[in-house]
């Protein structure tokens, strides 16, 4: 009946387990998944991370002048799917978790890329860095000039080429 007094024994042997955080260090293991950091040098703005990101914390925006990769920490669930997907290994992992800020802007990260305009229609469609990277990877396998053509125009271009090839000029 007095077995409940055994809690005192536990208290005496275990002692205090809470910490005076933030005055004492916090506890995270080496495996903890924290904030991600995108390396602006390695990143080419291909958007693979944007497509896999479950909470849509990563978004990409293409406009006339530039391509903007946006990372909104407020939405991030720290799953690191982007890290796994990134073909450039441009996303660095950390175990940071103290993310509160005073200014909303501080939870937004942006990477800006210069954009290539389509040789045919003049529409901005992809970051320059991505084109350079593709060039580097595929080398001579692909017609270099086609890289500067937007997907829509390329479709038309290819169709025209095929027609020309099999049906002759016409």
């Amino acid at each position, binding site marked *: 009946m007095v077995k409940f007094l055994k809690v005192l024994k536990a208290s005496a042997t275990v002692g205090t387990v809470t910490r005076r955080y933030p005055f004492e260090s916090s506890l995270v293991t080496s495996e903890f998944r924290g904030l991600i950091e995108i390396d602006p040098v390695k990143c080419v703005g291909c958007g693979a991370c944007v497509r*896999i990101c*479950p909470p849509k914390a990563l978004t990409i925006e293409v406009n006339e002048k530039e391509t903007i990769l946006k990372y909104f920490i407020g939405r991030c669930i720290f799953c690191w799917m982007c890290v796994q997907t990134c073909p450039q290994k441009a996303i660095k992992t950390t175990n940071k978790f103290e993310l509160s800020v005073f200014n909303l802007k501080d939870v937004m990260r942006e990477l800006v890329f210069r954009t290539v305009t389509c040789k045919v229609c003049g529409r901005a469609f992809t970051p320059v860095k991505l084109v350079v990277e593709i060039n580097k990877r595929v080398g001579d396998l692909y017609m270099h000039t086609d890289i500067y053509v937007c997907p829509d125009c390329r479709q038309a271009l290819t169709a025209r080429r095929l027609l020309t090839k099999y049906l002759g000029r016409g």
Partner: protein
Amino acid sequence: MVKQLLIKEGGETQTVKVLNRIKDLCGPHTSIEFIHDKTVKVSVKSECLRKVAEALQSEEDVYLRTMVASDEKLINDSIKLYYVFGLDREGVNVILEVKIPAALSKHYEIPSISDVVKACDWYELEAHDLMGVKFSGRFLKRLVLPDDWPEEIHPLKKDITTEEIKKLYQPQVREKALEVGAEEVALIPVGPYHPALHEPEYFELYIKEEKVVDARYVGFMVHRGIEKLGESMGYDQIPFLAERICGICGFVHSVSYTQAVEEALNIEVPEKTQYIRTIILELERIHSHLLWLGIAAHLLGYDTGFMYAWRIREKVMVLSELLTGSRKTYGINLVGGVRKDINKEKIEKTKQTLKEVWKDYKGFAEVLLNVPQVRRRLSGTGVLPGGEARAYSLVGPTARGSGLSRDVRKDYTYGAYHFVSFSIPTYSEGDNLARTLVRIDEVYESINIIEQLLDTIPSGSEIKVNSWEPQPMKLGLGNVEAPRGEVIHLVITGMYGPYRWRVRSPTYQNLQAVPTMLRGVDLADAPITIASIDPCFSCTDRAIKINIKTGKIERVPLIKLSVKGGS
């Protein structure tokens, strides 16, 4: 061939018996198709649905596991209802498929079976609200959707997208504020809240002299439309969403989902994946039960016990972080595999931590059960007899506290559970103490299971399949024994993501029995009784609002508890 598969030595199995009975009732041309090893789909005409339901309900160890309404207008010009009945003894799922021609769907009525199968009550109401299915022979009312939701818009139908819904319906906070003349809009959440678990819920207790004479529950405060959202996401994104259905036992949802997809598409996952998933599932059970025990102690005023339990739980949380990378919402599950391996070093660390936890936990359990007030207030309160538990198709520790040894880890085995031996603690008293004891014993079993798994875990590094191809319109079921009871996901596959994804959480089944438990208890014991099913309102509210009929007891509403709006 069907029969050959199922006949074991010793004659006819229950499955064969049930299937023959269905053929007798619906005619010899009824289509019976084994879509997976242990899942059989039976097409039933709506006229004979009630007869079949009656026959199934009268069978022993058979219960309604879930019911899914699916809009398949674009595929086969119909809306379909899938009633999933489980045959516990053989671990076989019988899915009754009822077809509603899309053209007639506005007027077509399906006979209600909620009077025969008690658990079907909410499922029918949900199908009515979200899919516009009409049921005859019962009272239908708007439940899931808010009162000012536009008529004739059923959000789960395929002809409306998430974006359209967002445009169509926005809570009118700003307008309301301007109406009353407020210059700036500040949204202050006032009630409803849980007396204990701090989740949005609303109980009305009718009290006479400190005794509860009746109870009413209104939920559905946090309906998030997750199923609809899931239909717009890719296969590998959903596990992360599924994990966020519940803040305490999220991993069970991601495993259920991935299992459902894997079953539908016949993906064979590596053995090590099964091991890792099972280990994490059991680790989650330990932390969830410790959390619950702490809350229970707190509800009974024993705060030292609360701190004690949560101190032990902290070790498990840190261990989870070591194995998965996160304390909660582990995020390591994908269709076809897991993302994080468990190496030798981690195995050793886990074993060592579990040993400490076992010792510490044993001391805690002894202390908790011997505190005079805790013991006294748990025993004999919130009684739920076994018969009621069976009638309501209850699951998990709630069912096992009332003498039903229902546990999907054994009955419909999955993961790596068939590699280990473990027992299922069952108590027959049906009171709060019985449910507490079930959870206390289960923690020992879980530690035991993890230790066995760690001893036999395959040493290879293959933890996911290399690639898999989605095929449209395949049906798969995935179930997991969550800390709160069975979770069951049903997935109908599409090309890029699931075509229909149905989640059924344990609280959805168990909450129906709470008013029965509450009648006659002291007001002061109401919180622990409500908490004794370990309710998870976020899980449940994902899909439905529940209204318990108030019964005919003459009552004196002395106080209305949890006054909405804090008057």
